């Protein structure tokens, strides 16, 4: 009787244990780091609307994402005075090979995203978004109008506003926030 009880209990335990999903093999074989989706690279390209000044590109690159190693590239934006630039933004995940272009994804979900540009008061610079999701602006494309020589900072923010986009920068979660040192020369 005793022996049978113990036996049947043990069997029951084993059966219960066996029902679990078992992925223990994964323990010694962890995922390669940065397998997840990451925006590693922010690129903004300025082309002179008049086609006179050379094209300018500014980048921020942090290949291992937040934490870990410091960003490898954080450019200064250098623009010519009294010029109208057409700016376009590119987002990349360069932690994978080949690099993944995330700009397309933002474009597809443009009704959930908004770029905001805020130059400091010291800059003689006016920035307006030039694209639209149908209702509100998006900001992947924008127009930068420079005037007299000046320096300052320009903060570029990408807001994720699923279902709450109202054209303002306020609502939502911040996906990108970069403050570029800016020189108008």
């Amino acid at each position, binding site marked *: 009787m005793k022996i049978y009880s113990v036996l049947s209990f043990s069997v029951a335990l084993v059966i219960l244990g066996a029902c679990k999903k078992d992925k223990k093999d994964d323990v010694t074989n962890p995922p390669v780091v940065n397998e997840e989706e990451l925006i590693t690279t922010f690129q903004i390209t300025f082309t002179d609307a008049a086609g006179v000044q050379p094209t300018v590109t500014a980048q921020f690159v942090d290949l291992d994402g937040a934490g870990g190693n410091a960003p490898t590239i954080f450019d200064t934006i250098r623009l010519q005075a009294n010029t109208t630039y057409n700016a376009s933004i590119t987002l990349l995940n360069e932690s994978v090979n080949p690099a993944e272009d995330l700009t397309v994804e933002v474009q597809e979900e443009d009704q959930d995203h908004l770029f905001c540009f805020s130059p400091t008061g010291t800059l003689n610079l006016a920035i307006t978004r030039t694209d639209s999701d149908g209702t509100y602006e998006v900001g992947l494309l924008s127009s930068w109008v420079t005037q007299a020589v000046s320096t300052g900072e320009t903060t570029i923010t990408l807001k994720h506003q699923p279902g709450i986009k109202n054209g303002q920068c306020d609502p939502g979660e*911040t996906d990108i926030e970069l403050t570029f040192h800016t020189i108008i020369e």
Partner: protein
Amino acid sequence: MKYVFTCAFVLVSMINLAQNCGFSLTGVVRDEHTKNPVPFAKLSVESIGRQTQTDSLGNFTIGNLCPGLLKLRCIPHFGCEPVDIDVQIPTESLLVIDVETHIIDLDENVIIAYQFRRETQAGMKLSVNDLSKVKGATLGEQLMRIPGMSTLNTGSSIVKPVINGMHSNRIVIVNNGIRQEGQQWGSEHAPEIDPNLAGNLEVIQGASGLQYGPDAIGGVILVSPDPLPYGKNINGWLKLSGNSNGWGGMSSALVSGSFKRLPKLAFRVHGTGRINGTQSAPDYFIKNTASNDYSFSGAVGYKGTRLEADVFYSRYTSNLGIFTGSHIGNLTDLNAAFLAEQPKDSGYFTYAVEKPKQFIQHQLSKLNLVYHWTEKVKSVVIVGYQYNLRQEYDLHKAYNDSIAALDLPAFELNLWTTSVDAKTTVLHSEKLKSVVGVSFFQQDNAYAGRFFIPNFRKWQGGAYYTGVYESENWQLDYGLRYDLSRLKVYKYEGNVLTSPERDFGNLSASIGASRVIGHHVIVRANAGTAWRPPSINELYSDGLHHGAAAIEVGDPLMKKETVYNVQAGMQYKSRFAKLDLSVFWNRFDDYINLQPQLPAQLTIVGAFPVFHYEQSDVRIAGLNGVLEIPVQKWLTYTIQGNLLIADDLETKQPVYGIPSNRLINRLRTGTTFKNTAWSWFAEAEGITVFEQKRVPENADYAEPPKGYFLLNVSVGLSKKISATQSLQLVLEGSNLLNTSYRDYMNRFRYFTDDPGRNWTVKMIVPFSIKKSTKNN
């Protein structure tokens, strides 16, 4: 007091007629459940100042008694509560008296002076099914009635218990005899336990805590179901509750019993379902705070004369919405959120759990074997297997459509734990008992998605000895334990898979003494040392902690944390007052704590403050007290308070994240209706929480929130159905004044107020399937 579980004494007395004053009273003390005699139970005959003790077979005889009323008293000693029994001498009727006692086996922690911590009001133990005393739905909230307890919250649905300012890795939760092994290092990871299954919740400190591991620095929380009811009828209870804030509901049922033809077999089945919608603060809905959880458990057992065996399985599943406004992108968002009077995203009512959210599952299987070698020696072996799954979903779905379509969690942690515990209890004499045991566990952790902690494998083993010596007025308890722990981590350094290994080992010890002084006072002192190996996040976390808006960096070279503590306390009990006071002093070597680092780190999402796990010497001291005064026969006033002081001795700064001091004033009234089994109670409670002024500089984004006052009331009706069961109906109102407040121990204090007024109706309906013929 061997082999006695939470039990009722059944006292059968027989009166033998003899000469004048030559009457004698004989009887036997038996365990209610097993009907086994209880040896060495102490009784006193108050009216004539004599004492007696049952013999090894539980029998007692008191001779030379005169006719008249005799007051028998269960001596307020370490074994039972002071209950008076009146016997008319001579009498021929059979006297059956139920006495609630809380004696448990030595190995289930009687080591701490029993009286000292088991007073029903001031004590460290709560009966979960006493709806008049237990509040809240989560384990953390339900423990709040115990002095020194507080909670660490993440919003309103994630509640972690805190003992004397210590939580997470510094306390051990023992669920049904097994250490709960989840991702308990995280402050936003609530214990994966349904408290409804527990008959009792208990907090233990001192030598008996050593049985559960070296790391019970703050204490052990025991969540214990009632023992399987061998030889009893099938019965159970149904518990229902509904609450107004979040329009939530809970239903829980338990059935347990034994079959007539197989009295040696017993079973228990239990299930709970709970759902709650969006909760609201006094002025707005707190967006995405819906939650639901489900749990199930079953147990079967066999109890023979020498062998007992049972198996237990439980499964707990929980879905928790995380307040959307807490999911901030960077420090700018955080500052904006903090300056805002109320969250920018206004909430709405729903039962749906939206993103960000947590999905948690915990499974536990257990085999428990007990063998009685002799009447005085028994061994227990517990084999356990636990699987813990934690999935956390971000608000933001992936940019890439094909990844987004999979709807994967941002990260997932799988934890498997296999444990074996074995111990032997020896009753050397009626005064001396000891427990010797070994324990071992192996743990595997695997993650998927975003890196937060690495995969690891952990082994930990230990051996211990604890003992207790009891005399008439003294109780001495002591214990010693040694543990070794090995942690092997599997992670990529660049593109190379590495598997660094860390070993830790140390001694833990505890010694305590208590003394009964007169009839009213017990004093106690305890000293001990405990330690813990650094947890995985303290060693290896490296990255952005969403929701905390901080980059947290571990230190792979972290040493173990050791604590030396001293506690002293006294308990006074008379018909004028009950007082329970304790002071404690903990000195930590290499206390592990997050320290702010400058400068902030730049990322594509903006700048984040950086915190490093660092070690320093810390002191945590405090005071807990409860005073209960029966102002009138029908009115009791209780005042309960606690005070905590925690300092980093190296930086000469207070320690971050220590609960504020609080004071509870409570008035309770109630009586039993004459000649019925019905009784009622009403209670009003004012909770004053003071502002936490002792905070380190530059370690927090904002000043701690102001102090606040909450008013709670409850009224209830109950009908006693048997010695252990009653029908109860309770109406409870919490935060009755609908005060807007934020608590320092709520991680969402930056973003939102705590919930406002909540009405709860709850009831418990006991039932039995066959009409009881035996005395319960």
